[in-house]
């Protein structure tokens, strides 16, 4: 039994996958907290679509090598983040509309380019990812991005906190909300580009929103929410990957399902979950009943 449990750990490609799952889970979980509280979670999904034209053009111009595709995706993502951020600040378009307008256009253009450039197998690889096919280069790339995300969070904790809680007050303190906002969007892009190989574009949203939502339902402090989202992201994704091995199920969906299972359990049993609400409602009803009896 124990041998079966630890069997996957004897394979280097599984260990590489576990490392990437852990690192990506932490980075996505932390960034997801900002997206969740700024009501921007769908942006992570939209970014995935926006990367398609970049991947397609890089494939056409630079060939199927991974580095070229990452470069194309990164440039497309950064440009989209910049343009959508500016669209929102310099036009009267609300942020979600600015993103939606840009991303749906990118997705359409991306599909046209990709159909010309790639085989269906290549396309599926980037849409759904394959974490067990990761190389050591992927591990180092993921480690660099995850470390940069955590380091940036530590260095700019205060402006990031203010931007999420009260962006106007950030301005009153001499900060630049637009700069901080663009920084968060760039972090999202960098993480999604890194996650291309492991997670794919389609399921990337789950890595951002599920750990953050789970932590949000359990925490009353911003710092604990960030810590918990990072830990849930890393641990649940790793557990999902191991489960996919034991059950012989596809790894990408299994990792997202594990993140989802934690989120669902927090939705029910978390500090601000359904059980707590039900208890609070029952407590209020009991109290008002006691008061009525007294009067």
């Amino acid at each position, binding site marked *: 039994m124990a041998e079966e449990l630890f069997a996957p750990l004897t394979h280097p490609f599984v260990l590489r996958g576990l490392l990437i799952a852990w690192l990506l889970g932490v980075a996505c979980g932390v960034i997801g907290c900002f997206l969740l509280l700024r009501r921007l979670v769908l942006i992570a999904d939209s970014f995935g679509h926006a990367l398609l034209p970049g991947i397609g053009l890089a494939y056409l111009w630079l060939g199927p090598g991974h580095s070229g595709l990452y470069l194309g995706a990164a440039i497309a993502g950064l440009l989209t983040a910049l343009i959508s951020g500016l669209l929102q600040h310099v036009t009267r378009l609300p942020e979600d509309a600015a993103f939606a307008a840009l991303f749906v256009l990118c997705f359409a253009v991306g599909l046209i380019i990709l159909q010309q450039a790639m085989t269906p197998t290549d396309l599926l690889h980037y849409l759904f990812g394959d974490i067990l096919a990761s190389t050591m280069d992927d591990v180092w790339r993921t480690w660099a991005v995850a470390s940069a995300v955590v380091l940036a969070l530590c260095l700019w904790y*205060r402006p990031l906190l203010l931007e999420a*809680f*009260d962006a106007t007050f950030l301005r*009153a*303190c001499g900060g630049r909300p637009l700069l901080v906002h663009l920084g968060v969007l760039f972090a999202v892009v960098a993480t999604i580009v890194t996650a291309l190989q492991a997670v794919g574009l389609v399921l990337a949203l789950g890595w951002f929103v599920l750990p953050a939502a789970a932590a949000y339902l359990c925490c*009353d*402090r*911003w710092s604990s929410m960030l810590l918990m989202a990072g830990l849930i992201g890393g641990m649940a994704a790793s557990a999902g990957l191991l489960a996919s091995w034991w059950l012989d199920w596809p790894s990408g969906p299994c990792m997202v399902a594990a993140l989802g299972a934690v989120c669902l359990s927090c939705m029910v049993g978390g500090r601000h979950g359904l059980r707590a609400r039900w208890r609070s409602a029952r407590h209020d009803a009991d109290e008002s009943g006691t008061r009525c009896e007294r009067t």
Partner: protein
Amino acid sequence: MSGAHHDHLVLDDVTICYRRRPAVHHVSCALPCGSLVALVGPNGAGKSTLLAGILGWLPLTTGRIVWNGHELRGRPQFVGWLGQRRQQHGSFPIDVASVVAMGRYGQVGWWRGFTADDRTAVTQAMATMGIAHLADRAFHELSGGEQQRVLLARALAGGAEVLLLDEPLTGLDAVAVRDVLERLQAWVRGGRLVLLVLHDLAIVRAWCPYTVLLRRELIAAGPTATVLTEAQLARCYGRRFVEGGAAHG
């Protein structure tokens, strides 16, 4: 208007434009310290614009703003601010003490840790606003009045000498209004200045010894009793407003 003047916030020929259209025209006045000063005028009169100009968020087309001999704009450590509408995330996971501590960020910067002085300033700001007992409570669990006091404490925690409050009493009941104004009144006694944008003239008459009446340009500035006259209010709000009796508010 003379430039530097101690014990006054001096607005000297201040003009602020939005897309080349002046929203505030050549406003000159000296606001005395040690009292609550009301900034009164109809919607679109340029009140929030003037506050944004004092904060340095909008460029001045003409003029300057001087506090104790120093140009005030671009010095967040001297000016506290509370905005017009609730800008805060409704259910952000954060406790009251952390919200008030944000008020020190202008002083300590983004990287330096809090010193004992910073922590004392936060504690004092909470005590001044009577929210010390709420320090560990979640911000989103508080009532509207309590949240407003927390945000006022955050504005005080920075140690600013000038506090700009844009409609700080909106949404508060009569008891909370009285409580907030009493606390602000006590706070300014040390020689500080609170400039409040207000719409309720009865509150202005009862609580603010000094008033600035603005309608894009300065209608009047001075002791409240001499500023809120029927003639001045008619110039500011229109004749119908005064005839409707609102001027006696």
